[in-house]
């Protein structure tokens, strides 16, 4: 009990500096874990979120913009393509399924996307997982002014089966741009933890012919979501549309295109990680400074302990262990910081993209980081421990008479 008692009493005697130092450790640990977890999870989530499709066909333009618009329901559409293009690719022998979508309207900021009922009836958004509706709901009639709401959009907008609404023109909500049509909610999708949750789905024809839309584009679609029969089909279609053709763009494979996005913003991720490492170093330095500065005040206590028979290595070990304890306190509190930060960031990401990040998903960083912080703090305790180790007993206790 000797060592724990010495450590406990020392921490109590310097309670304020203990709390402040442990707080800085907690901040560093929480920040590091949060940066790491958000980085790895968001990268994995975005690159794996294909909602069941292998490729996207759209107007000539950026593949990334096409994927962000058609799969993640972010960004503006690069343009429309004629319905004939949809019919042609649908009949292509390499294509297993083709689902057209049309965008251009919203309901109080949540996108309205026009599509066909087949999306909900035949497509698996993840292996073995098809879209299902909450009890009492049904898929919209493709010829009626009906809507199926994604779970997140329904929750945020308070939509339920039987509710009616007027769509607003454009992707950005402007209350002055309300359409005259009245849509009735016929179903609410169960959560899929994909961008689909943030969308209100209506019949393709309904969106194409919404009042105020250009009548010349009444049959155009914004993009076609594709399931291919084999990976080689993707390269064949890539050749056909991207290299030989110059009118349309095929985004394939979806995951690799999103991975490119992460590569482009990797500098930001590196800066965040560097900041977190610096915070960790500063925190370890603060442990060193905090204990070192208190050494003058503690030298008499250390000399008394030595006079009572405590060995030098006991004193050295007590100071290093005290630093490690401060690190451990900070590491534990770091989990609270991590939870708070991660919950905030994950909430923003879900609201903006529909991608769900799991705060409790197991990852080695969740134990490596706290252990590394404790080790770093123990290392920070070595310098003051060495000073304690060298405390001259007789000179400290009383002057020579």
């Amino acid at each position, binding site marked *: *009990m*000797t060592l724990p*008692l*010495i450590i406990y*009493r*020392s921490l*109590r*005697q310097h309670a304020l500096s203990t709390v402040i130092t442990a707080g800085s450790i907690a901040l560093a640990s929480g920040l590091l874990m949060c940066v790491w977890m958000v980085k790895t999870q968001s990268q994995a989530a975005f690159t794996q979120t294909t909602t069941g499709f292998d490729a996207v066909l759209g107007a000539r333009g950026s593949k990334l913009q096409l994927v962000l618009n058609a799969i993640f329901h972010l960004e503006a559409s690069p343009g429309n393509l004629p319905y004939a293009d949809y019919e042609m690719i649908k009949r292509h022998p390499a294509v297993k399924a083709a689902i057209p979508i049309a965008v251009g309207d919203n309901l109080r900021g949540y996108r309205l996307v026009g599509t066909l009922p087949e999306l909900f009836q035949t497509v698996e958004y993840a292996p073995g997982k098809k879209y299902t509706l909450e009890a009492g709901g049904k898929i919209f009639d493709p010829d009626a002014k009906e809507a199926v709401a994604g779970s997140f959009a329904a929750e945020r907008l308070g939509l339920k089966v039987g509710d009616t609404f007027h769509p607003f023109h454009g992707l950005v909500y402007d209350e002055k741009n309300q359409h005259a049509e009245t849509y009735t909610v016929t179903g609410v999708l169960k959560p899929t933890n994909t961008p689909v949750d943030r969308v209100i789905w209506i019949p393709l024809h309904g969106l194409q012919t919404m009042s105020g839309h250009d009548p010349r584009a009444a049959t155009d679609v914004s993009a076609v979501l594709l399931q291919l029969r084999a990976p080689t089909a993707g390269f064949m279609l890539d050749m056909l549309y991207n290299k030989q053709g110059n009118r349309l763009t095929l985004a394939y494979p979806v995951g690799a295109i999103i991975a490119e996005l992460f590569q482009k913003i990797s500098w930001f991720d590196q800066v965040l990680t560097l900041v977190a490492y610096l915070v960790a170093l500063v925190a370890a330095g603060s442990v060193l400074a905090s204990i070192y500065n208190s050494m003058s005040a503690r030298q*008499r*206590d250390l000399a*008394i*302990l*030595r*006079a*009572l*028979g*405590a*060995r*030098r*290595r*006991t004193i050295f070990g007590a100071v290093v262990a005290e630093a490690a304890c401060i690190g451990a306190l900070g590491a534990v509190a770091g989990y609270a910081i991590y939870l708070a930060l991660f919950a905030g960031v994950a909430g923003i990401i879900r609201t903006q993209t529909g991608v769900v990040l799991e705060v409790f998903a197991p990852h080695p960083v969740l134990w490596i980081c706290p252990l590394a912080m404790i080790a770093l703090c123990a290392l920070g305790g070595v310098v003051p421990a060495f000073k304690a180790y060298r405390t001259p*007993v*007789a000179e400290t*206790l*009383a002057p*020579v*008479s």
Partner: protein
Amino acid sequence: MLAVSDLLKSYPSPEGGRVEIVRVSAFGLAAGAQLALRGESGSGKTTFLNLIAGILAADSGRVAIDGTEMTALGEPRRDRLRAEKIGYIFQTFNLLQGYTVLENVVLGMSFGPGADRAHARDLLGRVGLGHRLDHFPRQLSTGQQQRVAVARALANRPKLVLADEPTGNLDHKHAGESLALIREVCRENGAALLLVSHDEGVLSQFEQRRDFAEINAAKGA
């Protein structure tokens, strides 16, 4: 119990060279004996006790405690010997201010044969502090703090108790009581007591008394 021979301790002088503080050719104390050393301030008696306790290294000479030559031991074993066989009552008590009364005593024991909380409680009860176990030194009177220091020094049932002006901070009444307590507990434990003081009132209570100047031949002390 205690045998000192050819013990020398000196310090560097500001004028150059070295100043001798302690030079004791021969000194001994039998088991259970109680001896008072008379010495004025600056005579080197605290240094002498520190050399015996092994918390100060001698330039040369021998100090043997209960048959073990302390000066021949490495520092870790010297620390161990001090923790097991020597009880030291400091003039300024040297209590750990951040620890309770009981912890002060138990911690002293833990470096020696091992912490024995029951014995520590008994001893503190014996010195009249059984009701103050969870108090901190700053919450005690000077006399009570001195009694904690006594309990701590005796907790390991040491073979040798060193007392450096143990009543120097107490009034006449409390000094007499404390001295009687130290001597009584030493007798009960069969411990040898070596006390240094310049207070004639304290010295007069000892049957065995010596002038430190008689045994310390240091030129600079």
